[in-house]
């Protein structure tokens, strides 16, 4: 298997109690992969550890594409940003070019055109000069997606990009992500809606503290595995 991201024996903890325990999984290149699990299962933590934003207590992450700066794209949860920051949608999209420019080169004509083109791809070109705080949740998500697209990454990580998003935005986002996979890029996404897993994804990792199941959707996304992931939490809550 040609892997895009692999984690081995990952344990992460913020305090005394581990948030992730001995997580090992691999995601093949070119797949559209979902990370699912109940609230508090450690989905966001797993993603942040993969990205190197959270330091694991033990274990390792390998992303072969990481050699080039900007090869890893990330769309954070929209709540994580300051909505009152004085910045326009276009400026956010242009940030996607910074990684390939490095510290000293300024964005040129080509970079600006790329940022505009990416806003067009997500259907936000009319809002280019709007402040980020003046956009709805779904529109913000699309702007952050445009930033990731402008980065021209090989592997994309998205943390619940469909949370609080209207149906039109959801369809637009999914069709763009499918396009990325068709080009051979990998998309890894934290997802909360179990009903759409079969329709959208070809790979799924079901986690709850540890890995419950990870593999092709048709192989592992079954009632039994879902029950195991979601009832373990119920058992934990009862204690």
């Amino acid at each position, binding site marked *: 298997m040609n892997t895009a991201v692999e984690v081995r024996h990952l344990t992460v903890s913020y305090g005394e109690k581990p948030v992730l325990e001995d997580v090992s999984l691999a995601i093949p290149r070119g797949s559209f992969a979902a990370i699912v699990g109940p609230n508090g299962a450690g989905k966001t933590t797993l993603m942040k550890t993969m990205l190197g934003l959270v330091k694991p207590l033990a274990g390792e992450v390998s992303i072969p594409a990481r050699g080039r700066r900007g090869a*890893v794209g990330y769309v954070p949860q929209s709540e994580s940003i300051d909505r009152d920051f004085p910045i326009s949608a276009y400026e956010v999209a242009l940030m996607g070019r*910074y990684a390939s420019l490095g510290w000293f080169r*300024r964005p040129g004509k080509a970079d600006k055109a790329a940022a505009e083109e990416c806003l067009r791809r997500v259907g936000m070109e009319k809002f280019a000069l709007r402040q980020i705080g003046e956009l709805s949740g779904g529109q913000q998500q699309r702007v952050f997606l445009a930033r990731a697209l402008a980065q021209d990454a090989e592997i994309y990580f998205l943390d619940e990009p469909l949370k609080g998003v209207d149906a039109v935005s959801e369809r637009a986002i999914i069709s763009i992500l499918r396009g990325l996979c068709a080009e051979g890029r990998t998309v890894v996404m934290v997802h909360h809606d179990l009903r759409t897993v079969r329709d959208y994804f070809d790979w799924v990792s079901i986690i709850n503290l540890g890995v419950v199941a990870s593999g092709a959707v048709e192989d592992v996304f079954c009632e039994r595995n879902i029950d195991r992931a979601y009832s373990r939490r119920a058992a934990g809550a009862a204690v």
Partner: protein
Amino acid sequence: MTAALGFMPRLATGPLIALMSDYTFRTVALGAALIGLMSGVVGCFSVLRREALLADGASHAALPGVVTAYLVTGSRDTAVLLAGAAVSSVLAAAATVLISRRTRIKFESALAVAMSVFFGLGLALISCAQHLPGASKAGLSRFIYGEASSMLMRDVLAAAVLVLVLTAFVCVFFRHFKLAAFDPEYAASAGLRSGAAGGALTAMTVAVTILGIQAVGAVLMSALLIAPAVAARQWTRSLAGMTALAAVFGAVSGVAGTAYSSLRDGVPTGPAIVVAASVIAGVSLLAAPGRGIAAKLVRRRRLRRRVLAATEINSDTRPQIAEAAEKAPPGVSSAERDIHTDGSAAPQEAGEDAGTSAPEDGGGEDNAGGA
């Protein structure tokens, strides 16, 4: 009355002109302007990164360093005293970080503890040092409330060099600072070391704070970082505009405060500068178009008048409206229902106003159509 008014300008402008032509004042005002300018620029990032409190800690914690530097070296040279200030600020910051990482105490509480302990220590040391021969001449107490007039041409030149270097630095790396302030996690994920940019911003905040304590004082220095940035945010929609405007506000506050304290004997420069900055911030919060409190009130009143007018026109169709309200979905609040059920005019006009602020998905607007 008129005689008094005619008399006033002469009273005020006479000394002011004399002041402007005074060499010492021009030197000192230039120094205060430079400090205000740099505080404005750096303060924008502190405010947006929610690090304003850190500047407060750094300035308060500088005091014992100033006194210790004097006690150890016996020097009254500003550079030596400020070096001591920097050391104790960094020590306080290290203590804060250590406490918040190793114990359950939160960062803000740790900062408050470190800040008050260091500041208290500084005050105690100053009163001890006052009893030493020659110490009162060293003018250590000027670091508490600030005394711009103690700035020599040499100090102003040093400040000018630092301001020039920092400004160039901010200009070259502006977009990286913007990214580090806006979304550091994204920057890190893309392989840009946002920690470096963030660290540089924090270091600049501390450097400007220390630079400012001679003129503004340890107690109030952080206000000069925060007030111009808060004021500038009200008038602009871009970070570049905010930074430039905050620089202007800071510089103006510096000059105005210095002028006021030179004209009124016994008013320390620090409070005067900070009052000037606060007046600018206050006016901006009240009167800025769009974001100001007055503008918001006016918008709300206008909307309310439209809604009321629409209700008036349709008052004879009340029974039908009540019926429509019954049918409205339970999620719509009664206030919203009133607007939407009052015929076609209200939703259109209300929509116009909503469009200028934030786009809301206007579901439920067509519920009234059936009535």
